[in-house]
């Protein structure tokens, strides 16, 4: 089970981290919502906390910001222990999930707040505020009050307010959740650009895997207060450490199998191979739907060193615009295969026979108890 040993508990040391969390634990009463969290973030890195609702992303972010104290563990920034430093002494910019704009101040005043606290001159403040507002395309709303803005506009003000202070660490709690698809794309690029330009170490909370994959240098996948895996988008996608990661990031087929004496895996009557030797008898096999090739004419299911082949019967077709999903039955297990659609789609029907093939490398195998 090589995959599991990679970074199962998130312990991965990198040289000279800018932000580090060591053995962080958070309990509310008797309930442990974060357990032994270890994480190191490089200077200027954009790291995503990705996970389902309630897995502890916001809690982790709030501990980094100093708004709540961990029950145990240590938080350090640039080697300095900040575990017991108040939020105002941490020089972090935080964008709240609920925006938390000051209702009694105009948009411009909101954005200026952090600069005023830092004692900048009026001219400097006006200058920076104008720049920050134009960055989020809100310069025309500078004199409005937050309640006179739409949700998406408020979210952008919150972003400008956190960015304008050029913090040493930027903490974003689902900062794009309320924007429409087009604006979200724009803001993603914007955040990424600004973050790169200023080299701000950024922790980005999201439950949107596309956001995490497309924007971030590394992704931390969390589940139930634990880190499942830390890795680059490529690693997370191609070499998920757990079945949870495999199914949470990207789509995947999941079928049960049995390991045989010669190291192959039996799925129904088919035998397949994987590059990862799983140590158990009962295993779960996962293959990404678009990594499977359909051969409608072949009859041979002869295996070779690099590819798995299995005979399948088409049971259902789902058309979803960009892609078409073929649902196949393989000895009682369902395999979904995705192909991008073409204008002249060849017509296949329920009951058609085909041979599915996919590379051994794309075959992810996990112990069945995970």
């Amino acid at each position, binding site marked *: 089970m090589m995959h599991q040993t990679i970074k199962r508990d998130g312990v991965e040391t990198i040289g000279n981290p800018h932000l580090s969390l060591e053995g962080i634990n958070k309990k509310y009463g008797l309930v442990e919502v974060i357990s032994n969290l270890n994480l190191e973030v490089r200077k200027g890195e954009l790291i995503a906390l990705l996970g389902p609702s309630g897995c502890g992303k916001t809690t982790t972010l709030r501990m980094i*910001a*100093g*708004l709540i104290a961990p029950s145990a563990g240590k938080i350090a920034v640039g080697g300095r222990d900040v575990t017991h430093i*108040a*939020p*105002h002494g*941490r*020089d*972090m*910019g*935080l964008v*709240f999930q*609920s925006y*938390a*704009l*000051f*209702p*009694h101040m105009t948009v411009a005043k909101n954005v200026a*707040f*952090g600069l005023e*606290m*830092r004692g900048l001159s009026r001219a400097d403040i006006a200058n920076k505020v104008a720049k920050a507002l134009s960055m989020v395309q809100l310069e025309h709303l500078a004199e409005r009050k937050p309640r006179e803005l739409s949700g998406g506009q408020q979210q952008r003000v919150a972003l400008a*307010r*956190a960015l304008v*202070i050029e913090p040493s660490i930027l903490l974003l709690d689902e900062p794009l959740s309320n924007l429409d698809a087009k604006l979200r794309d724009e803001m993603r690029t914007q955040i990424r650009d600004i973050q790169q330009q200023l080299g701000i170490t950024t922790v980005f909370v999201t439950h949107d895997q596309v956001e995490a994959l497309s924007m971030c240098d590394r992704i931390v996948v969390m589940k139930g207060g634990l880190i499942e895996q830390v890795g680059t988008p490529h690693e997370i996608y191609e070499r998920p450490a757990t079945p949870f990661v495999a199914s949470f990031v990207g789509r995947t087929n999941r079928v049960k199998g049995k390991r045989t004496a010669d190291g192959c895996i039996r799925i129904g009557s088919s035998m397949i191979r994987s590059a990862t030797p799983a140590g158990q008898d009962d295993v779960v096999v996962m293959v990404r739907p678009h990594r499977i090739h359909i051969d409608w004419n072949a009859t041979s299911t002869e295996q070779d060193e690099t590819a798995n082949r299995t005979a399948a019967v088409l049971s259902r077709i789902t058309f979803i615009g960009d892609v078409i999903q073929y649902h196949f039955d393989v000895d009682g297990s369902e395999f979904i295969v995705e192909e991008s659609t073409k204008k002249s789609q060849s017509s296949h029907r329920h009951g058609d026979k085909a041979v599915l093939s996919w590379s051994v490398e794309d075959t992810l195998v996990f112990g069945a108890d995970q």
Partner: protein
Amino acid sequence: MEDNPTSWFMRITVTILFLFLLAPVLLVFPISFSGDQILAFPPSSWSLRWYEALLGNNVMMSAFLTSLGLASVVTVLSLIIAIPASYAIVRLKVTGSEFLFNLFTAPLLLPTIVLGLAILIIFASMGLLATFTGLVIGHLVITLPYALRVLSVSLGNLSLACEEAASSLGAKPLAVFGKVTLPMMAPGIVAATALCFLVSFDEVVITLFLTGPRMTTLPVELFHHVESQADPLVASVSVLLILMTLAVVMIVDRTMGLTKAMASGRAVSMSTVADAT
């Protein structure tokens, strides 16, 4: 909606209710313009003589000024005490603050007359009777519970997030309080100011025990006057009281909308609000 019969029914009911509640108060206005020697309705002649009598009545006028000064001082002191207190109770959750909150608000539950008697006994031995200081302290006992309740509710309804945002933007605790918490509490503060002022301005029961010939308030003087004489002077004094109350209500309404202010003080029972206004 306009043509809906139930909405018409509601309107008529509400109008009748209002008339029922307000008629006695409204009656005071015509009576205050009476030309008669005795209190009667309807007056047989009209004049401004009872307003002249009021202006010429040194005791009444000085009682009015005392009431005005007293209510102002009591209101300011109530806020100065209750704002930090409510912060300590709601935000800092200082140990024992729950107990202090209950202690401070207990006077609301006690029979006012017992409270007045207790204060009389204590103040008598301290020589505070019929002094401005004595009145201020006496009134604080009843205005503080209102101020504390209204402000605690108003603060409790504020989401912590704005204060957290401010501190993460670099504001020290005092700056967070001054620049974010306090302005956001404004509706509660306006409501508390109005309530304290009105409660103090027309307080009678406790004040009765604390006043004397040397120092008295307008409602108490009015009370004494009714006891000895039955002339329409009481009507003109009542008009003065009503106008003061209205002025406060209008100021609150202008600054933030009455319903909003009162809603932020909804922990205070409706009867006390009605009482105060």
